[in-house]
């Protein structure tokens, strides 16, 4: 069956989400709500130093405390061989992952786990932590990405060698890898330019700021099987990673995903899960672990701070002739920053003949980074989109017109090589150009300086593996079972896709997210992939169910299945006079017509549709305090096909909100010893609702040719443009290019003061 756009009955509507009532009534079970009989509580002892050698750990006093049942340290975890492995969609280094969740001979950042205690109450576990004696030899920390790259920098991992270099070196280093993307003739490109802009940018490490802290409850049975209940974006990844870290057979671990209170990429790896399972094994009792906010900030995976140099040239006619980028990203204590993605996204919105992009992945004494919404792309866009804005300004061309002239289209080669299929970048630029917002004059705010800025962004989106089951209930309703934790309204989207195919209402479909033993392999909820890929599997599984339903009707009617038509939830026969049956009627007869109908599908779709966004923002700046208020914000995005427009808009608004926080106030603040000083939401400043206007959205729907319903991922790209858009607005307001994130009030005030002092 081909679904035609104009015939959609469910897709594109706004039904109430299936999981909504449980969430607003407080009934939904999040990770920390899980409790088992006889359960112990475990806490983690964390390093108070940014860089130190562990000389000894004495746990005897902790073990002697009544109520303490077990203590583990790095010695209790298996030693794993060096090297990375492909795990599903992730390249993971199990050895480093294990060293990250429990330090071995060295601690590498403030908050690095050193030991864990399981006790009969959380308070006893906390008291026991104080009784563990750790002797440290303090080492100098390195906290700046460029300093970490220097030859004389303190070395974090003695075994680390740079990969991706032309010549192999055997020198210890903090540079884990380097990459280069290049094409054309850079020098000729810059020679052809009438204007060249080159600037340096720095950005701070920032956290996803999900509300729910990490948690895990684990149980280990005498038969060697274990179960983990956890709030995660990837139950299958948790299973795989725990299997590696604990050297347990994968099939012996079951992971049950709890409801998830936000992830944004940060819940795609493991921290507590292996520790809880190991403690459960040691004690024979279920073990629960829940992090505090400070633990989340200090010791889970934020995204990279970075240093980026960006140079671009363009002709008077407004054509970019060359672009050169050099970028170093903080990986944290172990390799694996998103610098590769930064390199591949930074120039992707533009058609460029001559370019060179160099990227460096650098370890330093901060927590190991993890994915964060379009990982690597926001830092990159901050640099490139500021330089683009400046080129347009110098050439006297409207910044959106400049983008339109250089924008990538179908057939444009990406910086990394492959050509785009049908994409909607130019359409997003035009949507902002034509928006009421961009056409309205800037408001006047007494005592404030106002400015308007625009910026664009790109994100690949992901495909990967998903499985889905669509079963027909005897009353003609359906169940959709997937393995994709719902962090953005994807239960509703999956139910709507099945409803569309089956001719049901959205509320006649029950979407269920299940555990790793109840559905086939499904990769993480990440890369904006669930509605695209799991939705693809649901679409195929629903089609499979329809095929079977037609067979059953054919059996009942004693005709060939090809002669049965399924349309809008009704089966009819093309060439004889059988009375058509509704799905409800047919479902009631299945017991005597071949038994239940269950459609299933497992997919690994390749037709991923990338996401593009263009944003415009109006700001007001207090010239004396440097405080920036967001007056108005409009985001246009190519969303392919908006299955549930409200949740697509919600994704855009959420991404913009995070981007605004990143732009203005969020940062990991370390003292000179590498101790994080803002380990709570008081001083790690995500925006409150009083800091944000209503974020307006424009959904541009350029269907993805790689998906039967035209779906593209939508969740990540909205975080990419905001810092650049705000920096460009700030330039219009105060006349200074801000090149450092966050653009906090202190920095803005200083910029205004210096500009006023400078001779005009």
């Amino acid at each position, binding site marked *: 069956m081909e679904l035609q756009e104009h015939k959609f009955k469910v897709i594109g509507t706004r039904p109430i989400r299936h999981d909504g009532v449980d969430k607003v009534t407080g009934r939904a079970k999040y990770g920390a709500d899980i409790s088992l009989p006889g359960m112990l509580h475990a806490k983690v002892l964390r390093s108070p130093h940014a860089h130190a050698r562990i000389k000894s750990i004495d746990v005897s006093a902790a073990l002697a405390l009544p109520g303490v049942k077990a203590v583990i340290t790095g010695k209790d975890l298996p030693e794993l061989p060096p090297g990375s492995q492909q795990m599903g969609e992730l390249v993971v280094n199990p050895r480093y992952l294990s060293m990250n969740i429990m330090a071995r001979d060295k601690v590498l950042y403030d908050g690095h786990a050193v030991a864990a205690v399981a006790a009969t109450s959380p308070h006893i576990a906390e008291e026991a932590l104080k009784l563990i004696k750790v002797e440290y030899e303090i080492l100098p920390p390195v906290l700046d990405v460029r300093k970490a790259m220097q030859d004389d920098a303190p070395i974090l991992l003695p075994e680390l060698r740079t990969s991706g270099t032309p010549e192999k070196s055997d020198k210890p280093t903090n540079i884990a890898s380097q990459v280069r993307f290049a094409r054309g003739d850079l020098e000729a490109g810059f020679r052809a330019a009438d204007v060249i802009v080159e600037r340096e940018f720095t950005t701070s490490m920032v956290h996803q700021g999900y509300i729910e802290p990490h948690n895990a409850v684990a149980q280990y049975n005498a038969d060697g099987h274990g179960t983990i209940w956890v709030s995660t974006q990837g139950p299958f990844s948790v299973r795989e990673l725990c299997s590696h870290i604990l050297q347990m057979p994968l099939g012996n671990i079951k992971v049950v995903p709890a409801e998830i209170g936000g992830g944004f990429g940060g819940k795609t790896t493991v921290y507590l899960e292996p520790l809880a399972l190991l403690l459960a094994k040691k004690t024979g009792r279920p073990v629960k672990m829940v992090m505090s906010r400070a633990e989340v900030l200090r010791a889970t995976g934020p995204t990279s701070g970075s240093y980026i140099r960006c140079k671009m040239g363009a002709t008077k006619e407004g054509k970019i002739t060359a672009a050169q980028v050099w970028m170093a990203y903080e990986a944290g204590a172990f390799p694996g920053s998103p610098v590769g993605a930064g390199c591949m996204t930074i120039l992707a919105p533009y058609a460029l003949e001559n370019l060179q992009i160099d990227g460096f992945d650098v370890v330093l004494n901060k927590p190991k980074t993890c994915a964060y919404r379009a990982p690597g792309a926001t830092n990159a866009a901050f640099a490139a989109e500021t330089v683009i804005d400046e080129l347009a300004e110098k050439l006297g061309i409207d910044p959106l017109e400049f983008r339109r002239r250089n924008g990538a289209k179908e057939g444009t080669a990406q910086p990394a090589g492959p050509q785009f299929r049908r994409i909607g970048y130019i359409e997003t630029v035009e949507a902002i150009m034509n928006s009421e917002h961009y056409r309205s004059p800037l408001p006047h705010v007494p005592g404030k300086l106002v400015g308007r800025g625009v910026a664009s962004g790109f994100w690949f989106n992901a495909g990967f593996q998903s499985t889905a089951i669509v079963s027909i209930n005897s009353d003609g309703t359906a169940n959709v079972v997937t393995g994709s934790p719902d962090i953005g309204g994807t239960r509703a989207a999956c139910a709507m896709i099945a409803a569309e195919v089956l001719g049901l209402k959205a509320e006649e479909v029950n979407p269920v997210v299940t555990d790793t033993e109840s559905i086939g392999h499904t990769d993480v909820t990440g890369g904006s992939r669930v509605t695209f890929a799991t939705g693809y599997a649901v679409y195929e599984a629903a089609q499979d169910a329809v095929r079977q339903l037609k067979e059953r009707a054919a059996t009942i009617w004693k005709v060939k299945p090809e002669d049965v038509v399924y349309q809008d939830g009704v089966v009819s026969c093309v060439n004889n006079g059988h009375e058509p049956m509704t799905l409800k009627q047919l479902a009631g007869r299945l017991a005597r017509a071949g038994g239940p109908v269950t459609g299933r599908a497992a997919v690994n779709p390749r037709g991923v549709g990338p996401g593009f966004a263009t944003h415009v923002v109006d700001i007001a700046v207090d010239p004396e305090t440097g405080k920036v208020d967001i007056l108005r914000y409009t985001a246009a995005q190519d969303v392919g096909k908006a299955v549930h427009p409200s949740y697509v808009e919600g994704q855009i608004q959420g991404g913009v909100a995070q981007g605004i926080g990143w732009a203005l106030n969020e940062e990991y603040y370390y003292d000179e010893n590498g101790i994080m000083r803002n380990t709570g939401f*008081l001083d790690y*400043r995500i925006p409150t609702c009083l800091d944000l206007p209503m974020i307006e959205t424009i959904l541009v729907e350029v269907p993805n040719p790689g998906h039967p319903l035209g779906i593209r991922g939508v969740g990540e790209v909205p975080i990419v443009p905001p810092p650049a858009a705000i920096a460009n607005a700030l330039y219009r307001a105060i006349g200074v290019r801000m090149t450092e994130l966050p653009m*906090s009030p202190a920095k803005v005030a*200083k910029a205004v003061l210096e500009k006023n002092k400078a001779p005009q």
Partner: protein
Amino acid sequence: MHAITYEAPKSLEHALRLLAAAGEKGRVLAGGTDLLIQMRAGVRTPERLIDAKTIPELQVLSFSPHEGLRLGAAVPCYRIVEDPVLCQHYPGLVEAAGLIGSVQIKNRCTVGGNLCNGSPAADTTPALIALGAVCYVASPRGTRTVAVEDFVVSPGRTVLQPDEVLVEFRIPAPPPHTADCYQRFIPRNEMDIAVVGVGAAVTLDGEVCTAARIGLGAVAPTPLFAREASASLVGKPLDDEAIATAAELAQKIARPITDMRGTAEYRLHLVGVLTRRVLKVAAERARAR
């Protein structure tokens, strides 16, 4: 984590007895919006909590033109914000109390707790200093008075002995053409701790300033009374020049630090900005009276 006992005394005298008996292990609990958080973080470890909110003497809130304001130490901030008499006579104090936390926090927290917590960044302290507020402190030895600007001795430490309770603040009734103002700077629009806070109260005779007090928060280990800056205004018209001079003098006594809330340089800059701003608003208010 250890066991804690909680007491809800019904009189000041009872509270003082309980506190004396508890010694170093006792601590007064008002709204708990500082104390409970510090206990959770292990920063303070009292074993006996004596609730200030149940003591009638600490719930006084009265104003008369003759006596001025009596503000009990345990009066929750929502009462201050919603009190029409306070809003009329002490708009700066109301501004400061209104800035603390959220609606939920204001329903719990107190001006007494704000001061006794000893934070240099407490919002109501500069406003109290500007108003010339005096603290009434009781102990088994009797009652003593302390000026608000002398109350905090270092971050987290005050002049209070373990057996002393802050009972109330007394604030003189504002003379004619007198008004106050408090402003702070925070990077967001709510739920933040002052990077700098400045309170000011001025009295005018025509255009001439006859009395002025400026209080500064978050720019030194303790809240400050900007004595010279205040004195510089007296006897002069409250014009831009006088205000600029006072702001510069206020900056002179600021000794800010650099931390995650702001650099020393930025804080110094803000002392100037906010001093000018609060003096202008206070002057406008005073003229309108």
